[in-house]
């Protein structure tokens, strides 16, 4: 049991930290979040050993949600938006992605989690649903709302997201 767990941690730790960072936007918090998720995974390891990822993602998302409720309720992400969109620079990929990064940071945690799991971890809608503890239909709704909010974000007001495939 112990070796399998150590192998899993060794292989997946950095990736999980990156996912956690995309949820928290803070590396220290991300590492704490992953550590907490792995502690819970360790206690259930015999049960989840065959396929630990769904369990670990679910703990990661749920723990982050509980931390957010406890610590950060009512706070608004303060990351500065990029300078005004006018001018040819805005058309460059860097500026465009910078604006998108800021806009994603302003999304509600659940919507952001859906985007991260779907587009960073490449989970299927069903796997995202398992992680979020909801139906596939609810995941699609969360993704759709998230993308809709990005479309109307002031920093992206003249940009358009392609329709979700």
């Amino acid at each position, binding site marked *: 049991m112990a070796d399998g767990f150590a192998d899993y*941690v060794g292989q997946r730790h950095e990736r999980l930290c990156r996912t956690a960072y*995309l949820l928290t936007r803070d590396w220290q918090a991300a590492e704490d979040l992953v550590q907490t998720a*792995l502690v819970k995974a*360790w*206690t259930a390891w015999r049960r989840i050993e065959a396929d630990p990822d769904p369990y670990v993602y679910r703990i990661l998302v749920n723990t982050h949600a509980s931390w957010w409720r406890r610590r950060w309720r009512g706070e608004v992400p303060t990351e500065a938006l990029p300078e005004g969109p006018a001018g040819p620079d805005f058309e460059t990929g860097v500026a465009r*992605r910078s604006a998108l990064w800021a806009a994603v940071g302003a999304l509600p945690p659940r919507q952001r989690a859906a985007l991260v799991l779907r587009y*960073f971890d490449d989970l299927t809608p069903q796997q995202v649903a398992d992680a979020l503890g909801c139906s596939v239909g609810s995941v699609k709704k969360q993704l759709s709302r998230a993308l809709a909010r990005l479309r109307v974000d002031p920093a992206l007001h003249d*940009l358009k997201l*392609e329709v979700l495939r």
Partner: protein
Amino acid sequence: MTRFTEDDLRAVFCENSVREAGSPPRVSEIRRRGTRSRLRRRVTAGAAVAALAGAAATVVPLTGAMVAWSGETATSSQAGVELPRTLESRYGPVSLIFGQTYRSVGERERITFRPTSVHTGVALRCADPKAWVLVRDTKGTWNDLTPCVRLGRGLQVQYEERSVTPDWLRAPQSLEVWVFPADAPIGSPTTGDRCALADRRAGTCDGPWDREAITAMPERLAAATGPSRGLWSIGVYDQEPRPGS
């Protein structure tokens, strides 16, 4: 009008989640915290069962794995850590006035009792005779770190008029007890004298922990070993209060 695609989202996530060097995974700490979490859950579950069963236990701690000792005959699960109702001592027979059985080692435990005479005694029993025991008495003095088997079957400590505190019979007294697993990395008594790679600040000597350092700061060894399962009991014995005292 600029279009964002799913690939833009993927690229944004990938670019912004890259870092130079992160902390390596701390698997040992994960296991320690996991073990602690498991123990807490078992204690909580056990406490719930005990409450439902109307058990006589009157003390349910929030931390640590402990079962109250009610003085009955030991059950099979407590084999090896039974506390007899009475013990002989140099001042005559003494009776059990306080007893508790713990199910984990590697954690600080504190017991409080109310002496009935100045001849109070303490006895410890461990399911694993090689487990290490460290007790700090009411005056704050540590006894030697000792394998449980060396404590014998009688009292480990017994007080008398000159060794008790002035308020011995007027106030509750307490003891701090640490029991470490038999495989805890504890050096031999003479290790410190021939240590090739001593780390006095860390309290280690060629790897194992220096006994003096453990006595000074048992928390550090406990942090290294983490809690684990292990059955042990502590009993406080005393004489019947003298009439008029």
